[in-house]
């Protein structure tokens, strides 16, 4: 199967899964932003995406995408390390125009994944998981998402620690996407001499748009938490 056996095939899978996850992030970010304007509206979205069949299928799809993206990342990295050979260069010069993030995608990916686990425990486990299984995992009603968000981010001291942790996570995610988005388009063959610069700018804009809504929500609650101190 060429999607597994050829190098461009493997990169094609990385690109498609990555871009699909970026689309999800944009969607997720827009919904989160609602909580800043109206907690009721946010809870309505939580209700829509609770234990409904389409939300569950979506969740399973996302888990599959993350799994494929992760497994391929490991597979590609192992192959690439082997392709370098046993001897490393004694001196490695700085290569002009090479982005720092492009050389550290795996590390950034692990950062994103680590925080993702924390995030799933903080919210998903207490909301969708609790609603589906009927097990009580948090202190509020599973559909009262706004209460969970507020409790986590505004609790004295720990809330602010969580805010900083989430902001670090979002930074790692931004760097990952700043290379990932344009690189994915490039791998799909969607680039040429003229579009090279444009596509990098588009990648940067998409990365910012995907991360910014999350950052706004965290900063909003960070401010609220400080005011409550």
């Amino acid at each position: 199967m060429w999607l597994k056996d050829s190098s461009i095939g493997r990169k094609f899978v990385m690109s498609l899964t990555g871009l699909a996850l970026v689309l999800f992030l944009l969607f997720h970010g827009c919904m989160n932003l609602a909580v800043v304007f109206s907690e009721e509206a946010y809870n309505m979205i939580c209700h829509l995406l609770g234990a409904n069949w389409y939300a569950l299928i979506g969740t399973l799809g996302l888990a599959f995408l993350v799994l494929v993206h992760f497994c391929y990342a490991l597979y590609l990295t192992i192959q690439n390390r082997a392709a370098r050979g046993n001897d490393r260069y004694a001196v490695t010069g700085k290569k002009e125009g090479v982005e720092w993030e492009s050389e550290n995608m795996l590390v950034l990916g692990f950062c994103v994944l680590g925080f993702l686990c924390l995030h799933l425990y903080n919210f998903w486990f207490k909301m969708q998981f609790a609603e589906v299984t009927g097990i009580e995992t948090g202190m509020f009603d599973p559909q009262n998402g706004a209460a969970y968000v507020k409790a986590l981010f505004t609790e004295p001291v720990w809330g602010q620690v969580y805010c900083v942790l989430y902001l670090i996570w979002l930074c790692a995610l931004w760097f990952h996407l700043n290379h990932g988005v344009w690189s994915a388009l490039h791998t799909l063959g969607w680039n040429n001499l003229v579009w090279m610069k444009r596509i990098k700018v588009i990648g940067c804009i998409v990365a910012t748009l995907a991360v910014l809504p999350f950052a706004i929500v965290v900063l909003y609650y960070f401010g609220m938490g400080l005011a409550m101190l």
Partner: protein
Amino acid sequence: MDQYIDIKVRVWRQAGPKAQGHFETYDLKHVFQGASFLEMIDILNEQLVAEHKDPVTYDHDCREGICGMCSMYVNGHPHGPDSAITTCQLHMRKFKDGETITVEPWRSRAFPVIKDLMVDRGAYDKIMQAGGFVSVNTGGVPDANSIPIPKPVADEAMDAASCIGCGACAAACKNGSAMLFVAAKVSQLALLPQGKIEAAARAKAMVAKMDELGFGNCTNTGACAAECPKSVSLANIARLNREFLCAKFKD
């Protein structure tokens, strides 16, 4: 003004393909800055021969930047610290008095060291044999003016064709990927009407050969294009991806 400088040269010495390599540092006095880098290695070798030592083995041929033989990783850069030139076009005026210059061979699984700084780049020839050509069926020669090619296309094909197959791209790549080389070779032919006919088969054959020979997977860091002595553009890689993916979807 070019002056005479004293330098230290730290060279990778390896007796053979299976031998354990190591660095050896040599003092070299009174080197003229107007000398090319390879002339400096020649001076070093004369000194080594006079001392009854084994001279440093390295690849070189045309010494004017078109054959792609001089493969040296100088101070952490393929073809040295200057941009868009080969090692033979590098001059000693890029280095300072008292400097220690580290010279290493290409390090990549697909380019095994033969001796000292000389590596086996036969892998690139094998990729070319897999599809880097246009099949010519003998017959009358068509009139050149009967196949018009737009100037921008001809320029892009020419720029891709400037690849000399030196191996700097794979040597500079943290993934040991040969994508820029394969992309340049696929592009120079795929852009022109004569090469278009076999474009799909060529892309598939050359990528399959590249994977088989143990080159890595491209992650678009761009180190290859930054270090390429002929400034071959990264955009060629997008074209190779496009050609390859289209060919696979057609199958």
